[in-house]
């Protein structure tokens, strides 16, 4: 990215902030790039990161979001609050297209906690420097106690929530169970009716066929009419049988899929338990 391209993009991204602030920021960035000289222009622009990140930092600063929190790590500036999924700018505060692995993010989390404890110690002018090593230790303990308390409070909250929500949950469960059983009943009834109608159609076909053959001897027209009816009935019976078979096949398939899913879920869970149990 060239100087002009970077600055134009930055100017575009800084629309809407006060003119004075925008001019100041742009002047700063222009200075930085120009001071580097033409041979180092690429380097300095690469170091500045994307214009998106620069704009995000400037905006966060203007809205007072950089006042406290955040720390400067190997990976650049990280601020835990910008991990908020609602804050898409978050990842851009760091240099772009840098994928943090699990280990790395864990580290920054830990460091974030460390950082929060830091300013009180170093920035506070009234901080006593009697035994800083000791104060460091006491600084660590409340943190642990705090996390334990937070966990306990969370558990209590969850219990309260469950108690409060139980009537609704039970009501909802009742409604769901009702719907499920109603649908089941309808499906079973439909299957039974289909099977019954199929059987009936076959019986009627057989009876009409027999009568038709008998009538054919006396009055051929009536006999043929009855045989035709018998054939229609036979067709209906075959259709019913095919439908029943199809439904059975689908039901068997469904059961198989459900069983497979359940087995996989249980399997992965037990595998996880085994893994957890090993170390």
């Amino acid at each position: 990215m060239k100087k002009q391209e970077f600055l134009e993009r930055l100017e575009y991204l800084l629309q809407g902030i006060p003119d004075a602030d925008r001019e100041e920021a742009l002047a700063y960035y222009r200075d930085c790039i120009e001071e580097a000289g033409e041979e180092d222009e690429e380097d300095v622009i690469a170091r500045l990161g994307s214009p998106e990140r620069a704009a995000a930092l400037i905006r966060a600063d203007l809205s007072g979001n950089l006042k406290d929190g955040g720390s400067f790590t190997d990976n650049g500036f990280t601020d835990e609050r910008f991990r908020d999924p609602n804050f898409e700018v978050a990842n851009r505060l760091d240099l772009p297209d840098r994928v943090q692995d699990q280990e790395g993010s864990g580290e920054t989390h830990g460091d974030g906690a460390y950082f929060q404890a830091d300013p009180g110690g170093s920035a506070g002018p009234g901080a006593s420097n009697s035994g800083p090593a000791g104060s460091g230790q006491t600084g660590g303990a409340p943190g642990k106690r705090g996390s334990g308390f937070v966990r306990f409070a969370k558990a209590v909250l969850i219990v309260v929530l469950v108690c409060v929500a139980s009537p609704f949950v039970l009501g909802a469960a009742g409604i769901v169970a009702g719907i499920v059983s109603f649908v089941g009943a309808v499906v079973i009834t439909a299957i039974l009716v289909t099977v019954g109608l199929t059987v009936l159609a076959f019986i009627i076909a057989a009876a009409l066929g027999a009568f038709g053959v008998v009538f054919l001897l006396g009055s051929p027209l009536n006999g043929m009419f009855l045989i035709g009816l018998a054939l229609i009935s036979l067709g209906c019976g075959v259709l019913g049988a095919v439908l029943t078979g199809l439904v059975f096949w689908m039901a068997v398939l469904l059961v198989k899929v459900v069983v497979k899913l359940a087995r996989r879920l249980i399997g992965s869970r037990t595998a996880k338990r085994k893994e957890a149990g090993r170390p």
Partner: protein
Amino acid sequence: MVFNTGAALLDAIVLAAVSKAAEGSYGYRITQDVRKAIDISESTLYPVLRRLLQEECLSAYDRAIDGRNRRYYKITEKGRVQLNLYRSEWSVYSANITRIFKEAGI
């Protein structure tokens, strides 16, 4: 480096870099100086400089160089007091850490 630099320490480093010369320093050179200690970019430094200006730890003035204005940052009296505080805190802090390492027999 595995250690993080908190906002206070970064302020201290920037204030120290600015006060190297009596005339102050400008964005690019401040970054170069700060980068001798920690890896940081001009983008990250900008909000820090702005904040230090707002807190009146730094003052800014423009100087014409090569036909254009270069913005200089200069440490104020308040900034100097703050820098002294940081330096004394740092010497206590670093001495304690060093002592712990020595006691561990490293």
